[in-house]
């Protein structure tokens, strides 16, 4: 081994690397996100192409894993190092937490020019704005209290869409008796928490949900109503198959699509799976609100937070924000993604039946004041509280504690996480 050659070689390679890193791109945006697969990536690609038409290059920084966990770590390192990406995909209170650090941009001028205040629902604005300034551009609104059912299974067993908890249990009993898996579920903490959102809402109603999850009132968290909610979770546990632990959510959707299971309780991103499999809403599958939560919507919204960047990148950043909020993009993106546009003034007739239903529900709930952030997806309380509730919910679901203890633990965990 000729060491001198080796050293020269590595010096050359290092030099090349440095050179390439120094090459600067003209108007470009660097976007960090975790949409790395088929449907979502295709939806994001629409944005990329729209920007390229305006002369802005898209530099992609995908970091998959954990629904954004790894991405958040990467963001932290980048911000600490002093070179944040132009925009980062973020959910709910994470946006607020970052805005508090004073590292995000001020989009008020752009927002005023394009009139964002009027078209984005107030509940979303709570996250897109911080201290009165726009800091993020919302891409979509997902809602989490949906049920997805295989229509054939329902028809064969003579089940009508359940509208109350008791009807739901009766339906699940029928499916289980027929030898199918009643509830397709993926045993991951966030999935259990997603179901818990809906169960709490259906057990205690919107006021209770607000008191417990948004106000974090200990009296509501450790209350008989909460114990009842946990009891209902335990009941639902009896309808899942033995292999549920650790299963990814899209594999649970596949169970319903293929008719091996009856229903899945999941947010409306599940619709993307059904559509991708060529299924038609109303014909092959049903979408309805979790029984007891009709008229309310628990939502989460993917938003792109704009970080403070140098003046040379500001123009491109504003173009990105504007492109995200463009009505045409909002429709095109949400058609692919399965969610609902964040703007209330777009024409939803291009969306499928469930999407249109979602838009209607969103507008209705926003007006009535029953549009609440989802706890399971970081829109009701900050990350520390959210994950603390995960701990209790998943421990209870896996049989490690009874409902009474769970309610106590929930109040304790939430208190400790604040």
């Amino acid at each position: 081994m000729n060491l001198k050659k080796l050293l020269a070689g590595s010096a050359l390679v290092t030099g090349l690397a440095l050179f390439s890193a120094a090459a600067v791109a003209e108007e470009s945006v660097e976007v960090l996100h975790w949409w790395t697969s088929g449907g979502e990536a295709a939806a994001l690609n629409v944005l990329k192409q729209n920007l390229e038409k305006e002369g802005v290059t898209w530099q992609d920084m995908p970091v998959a894993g954990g629904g954004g966990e790894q991405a958040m770590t990467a963001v932290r390192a980048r911000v600490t190092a002093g070179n944040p990406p132009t925009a980062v995909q973020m959910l709910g209170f994470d946006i607020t937490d970052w805005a508090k650090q004073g590292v995000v941009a001020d989009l008020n001028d752009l927002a005023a020019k394009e009139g964002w205040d009027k078209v984005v629902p107030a509940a979303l604005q709570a996250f897109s704005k911080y201290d009165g300034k726009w800091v993020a551009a919302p891409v979509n609104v997902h809602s989490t209290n949906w049920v997805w059912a295989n229509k054939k299974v329902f028809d064969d067993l003579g089940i009508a869409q359940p509208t109350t908890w008791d009807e739901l249990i009766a339906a699940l009993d029928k499916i289980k008796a027929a030898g199918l898996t009643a509830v397709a579920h993926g045993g991951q903490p966030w999935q259990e928490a997603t179901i818990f959102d809906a169960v709490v809402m259906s057990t205690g109603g919107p006021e209770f949900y607000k008191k417990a999850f948004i106000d974090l009132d200990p009296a509501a968290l450790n209350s008989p109503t909460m114990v009842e909610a946990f009891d209902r979770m335990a009941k639902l546990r009896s309808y899942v198959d033995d292999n549920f632990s650790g299963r990814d959510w899209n594999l649970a959707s596949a169970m319903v699509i293929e008719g091996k299971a009856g229903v899945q309780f999941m947010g409306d991103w599940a619709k993307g799976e059904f559509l991708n499999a060529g299924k038609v809403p109303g014909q092959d599958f049903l979408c309805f609100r979790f029984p007891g939560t009709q008229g309310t919507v628990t939502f989460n919204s993917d938003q792109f937070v704009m970080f403070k960047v140098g003046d040379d990148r500001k123009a491109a950043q504003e173009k990105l924000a504007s492109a995200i909020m463009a009505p045409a993009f909002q429709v095109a993106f949400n058609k692919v993604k399965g969610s609902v546009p964040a703007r209330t003034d777009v024409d939803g007739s291009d969306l499928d039946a469930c999407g249109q239903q979602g838009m209607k529900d969103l507008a209705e709930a926003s007006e009535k004041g029953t549009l609440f952030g989802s706890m399971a997806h970081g829109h009701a309380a900050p990350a520390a509280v959210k994950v603390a509730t995960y701990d209790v919910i998943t421990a209870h679901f896996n049989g490690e504690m009874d409902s009474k203890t769970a309610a106590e633990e929930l109040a304790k965990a939430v208190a400790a996480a604040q």
Partner: protein
Amino acid sequence: MSQATPETAVRTSLLVRALIYAVLLIFAVYYLLPLFVMLVNSVKPLDEIRQGNMLALPQVFTLDPWRSAWSTAQIGVQPTGLRPYFINSVLMVIPAVAISTLLGAMNGYVLTKWRFRGDGIVFGLLLFACFIPFQIVLIPMARILGLLGLAGSTPGLVLVHVIYGLGFTTLFFRNYYDAFPTELIRAAQIDGAGFFRIFWRILLPSSGPIIVVTVIWQFTNIWNDFLFGASFADVDSQPVTIALNNLVSSSTGVKEYNVHFAGAVLAALPTLIVYIVSGRYFVRGLMAGAVKG
């Protein structure tokens, strides 16, 4: 019936030998099974994987998953496959391995041939660096990289990997040079050779085995690292492990297991090749030094 060859120190009977072979083969199956599962399932079409069982040979043989994993699979917004990230990994790994090996060699040389008071403590302190969990390092290192202007670049990644590889490389070389006869050094000094000349002319040329061990160890660790790559890399410098994770951990869509397995094997190919090609030198290298006191 006993076999006692001159080299075999321990005498064994034929029955015992048969048992030994059996045990070794059973373990070989244990080690090979996951690789077999990955390879066999990476050439099946997706429905066959869903229907069938993981150990069955493919009924329909297809190389599409491999093509997809290499150049068309969705890694981010673009369907680029793993190919572009390979180059990033290579650009990062080669300098990092070279520099950390060289520094480790010099450190080992100093610690064994140029003793000074407290060198044991210095070595102990360097050694403890092998055990630090990388998560602790992320935030402060990000700040420092930012201050140095190296954030998000390949040289930054190289620096980080060199720092955290020093513990091991120093350990390997120090053990090796410890066994190196000091008389040769003394003789060279009497002849007038200085610090560096002794290093280049005497120690390094006979360090072949331990260089192999160190290079293999460093190459594997740095190539397979995920945490630093995820936190300190930029658009132009993301290594292949990040791309593989993006491929495998996507949160929606059909899980194309065959593509995942093909991608996993592709990402592991360089290290696999290094191990298989240099396996024999590896053991020789270990013999020569890494396992001595």
